C-alpha cells in the first residue's frame, strides 16, 4: 500500500459543493449568484439534497450533541468577559482587608480617619451621581441605596467619580450603602443596551444582602481591553428578581419588570481606547 485514494475520501462527486459551501448556502452567507448555483445543483443531486436535509434538521440530527450545556457555559463566560474578570492578588487581598476596616468605621459611626484607606474613601465621595428612578435633579437622596465603585490601579486605590475614565487592567470592587436588608444585583449595561451581571458574577438573579454602609461586595473585577462606555447599576428590591426582568429603557436608566419598591443607583464609566 503506497497511496490513499483521496477522491474516495470525501465521498463527494467533484461537481458537488464542499461542506463549507453548503453550510454557507444554508446560513444565507452566499452572494445571490453562488447561492442560485448551489440551489440548482442540489435540486438535481440526491446526495446534496440529503446533505442539505441534514442541515435543516439542526441539532435534532445528532442525539449526542448537548447544545444547552455549551450555551450555558458560554453565557456565563460572556458575562464575565465583558467587565468582569475575577482577580486575586496579594495587593488586592490587602486592599480588601483595608476595605473591611473602613466598613467597620462606617457602621460604628466613628469619625473616619482611623486608617489611611478610610481617609481616601471619605475624601473621595463626591456626590456627582444620582439615585436613579427617585429624583431627576441629580441630587443624591439621603437614605437611598448607593453604589460605590472603588478602583485599584498600580497599587493606588480610589473611588470612581461618575464619568471617570478607566482603562484595561483597572481592578474594580463594588461597595454599597443599603438602608434596609434587600435583594441586590450589580449589572453593567453596554452602549448597545445589553445587560450583564457583575455581582453576583455571572448570576441569573439577585442575592440577599444586609443593611449597612460601605458594604464590600465579594469579588473584584478586572477590566478588559474593549473600548466604550458602560453604565453600572446597583438594583435593590425588596424581593428576589431575575436578570431577565431588568431592562435599560434609556442610557443610564434601569427598569425592573414587576419590581414594586425597587430602587437603583448608577455610575457611568468610560473606557479609554487602548
Amino acid at each position: 500500500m503506497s497511496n490513499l485514494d483521496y477522491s474516495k475520501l470525501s465521498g463527494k462527486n467533484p461537481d458537488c459543493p464542499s461542506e463549507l459551501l453548503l453550510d454557507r448556502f444554508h446560513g444565507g452567507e452566499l452572494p445571490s449568484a453562488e447561492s442560485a448555483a448551489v440551489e440548482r445543483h442540489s435540486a438535481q443531486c440526491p446526495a446534496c439534497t440529503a446533505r442539505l436535509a441534514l442541515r435543516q434538521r439542526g441539532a435534532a440530527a445528532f442525539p449526542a450533541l448537548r447544545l444547552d450545556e455549551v450555551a450555558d457555559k458560554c453565557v456565563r463566560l460572556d458575562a464575565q468577559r465583558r467587565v468582569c474578570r475575577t482577580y486575586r492578588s496579594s495587593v488586592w487581598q490587602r486592599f480588601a482587608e483595608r476595605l473591611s476596616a473602613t466598613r467597620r468605621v462606617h457602621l460604628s459611626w466613628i469619625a473616619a480617619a482611623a486608617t489611611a484607606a478610610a481617609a481616601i474613601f471619605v475624601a473621595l465621595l463626591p456626590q456627582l451621581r444620582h439615585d436613579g428612578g427617585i429624583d431627576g435633579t441629580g441630587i443624591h437622596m439621603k437614605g437611598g441605596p448607593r453604589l460605590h465603585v472603588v478602583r485599584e490601579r498600580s497599587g493606588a486605590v480610589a473611588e470612581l467619580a461618575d464619568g471617570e475614565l478607566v482603562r484595561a487592567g483597572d481592578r474594580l470592587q463594588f461597595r454599597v450603602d443599603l438602608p434596609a436588608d434587600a435583594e441586590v444585583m450589580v449589572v453593567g449595561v453596554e452602549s448597545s443596551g445589553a445587560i450583564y451581571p457583575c455581582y453576583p458574577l455571572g448570576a441569573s438573579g439577585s442575592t440577599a444582602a444586609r443593611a449597612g454602609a460601605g458594604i464590600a461586595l465579594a469579588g473584584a473585577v478586572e477590566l478588559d481591553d474593549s473600548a466604550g462606555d458602560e453604565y453600572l447599576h446597583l438594583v435593590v428590591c425588596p424581593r428576589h428578581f431575575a436578570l431577565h426582568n431588568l431592562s435599560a429603557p434609556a442610557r443610564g436608566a434601569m427598569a425592573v419588570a414587576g419590581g414594586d419598591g425597587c430602587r437603583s443607583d448608577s455610575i457611568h464609566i468610560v473606557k479609554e481606547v487602548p
Partner: protein
Amino acid sequence: MPDVDISELVRRYGPMVFRRARYLLGNDAEAQDAVQEVFVRLVNKIDSFRAESQPSTWLYRITTNYCLNLIRDRGRRRELLEQHATSTEDDPDPGAPDPELMALMRRLLAAADPLQAQAAIYVHVDGMSHAEAAALLNVSRRTVGNLLERFEKWARRNLEGLVPNNAAGGSNYTK
C-alpha cells in the same frame, strides 16, 4: 450580526461545528468537547466574530485548528487512532468522509506538517476547491497546490509503514 446573543449563536452554528468535528475526530464525545472549545474561543473574540461577514468560514477555521491539534496530541500519546472510528451504520451524516479512509487519514494528519495537513483536510476531506482552501488558509491557490503536492508525496512515503485498520478496506487503496 449585531446584538445576536450567545445562546442564539450556539443554537445556529453548534450543529455545524459538531458535525464537522465529529467527522474529523471520528468520535461523538470529543466532538462535543470541540463544540464547547470552539464556542469558548468565539466568546473570547465575540466582537470580531460579530463583524465577520462569513461566520461559517470563521468557525471552520477554528474547528479545523482545534481538531487538528487534538489529532496531533493523540498521535503524540501514541493512541490507536482507529479505535475512534465512527460506525457507519448509524451515521446520519451523508456528507461525512469514508470512515475507514478517514481513520487512515487521521494517522497521516497526526504526523504531517500542520499547514500541509490543513490544506489536505480542506481539499480532500471537506471537498473544497483550491480557491476555497486558499481563502481559509490566507494563501494563494498556487500555494494550496504546492502544499497538497508536498503532503501527498510525504503521505506516499509514510503509508508504506502504516497498516490498514481493516483488511476489507484494502480495495480502497491504490498502488
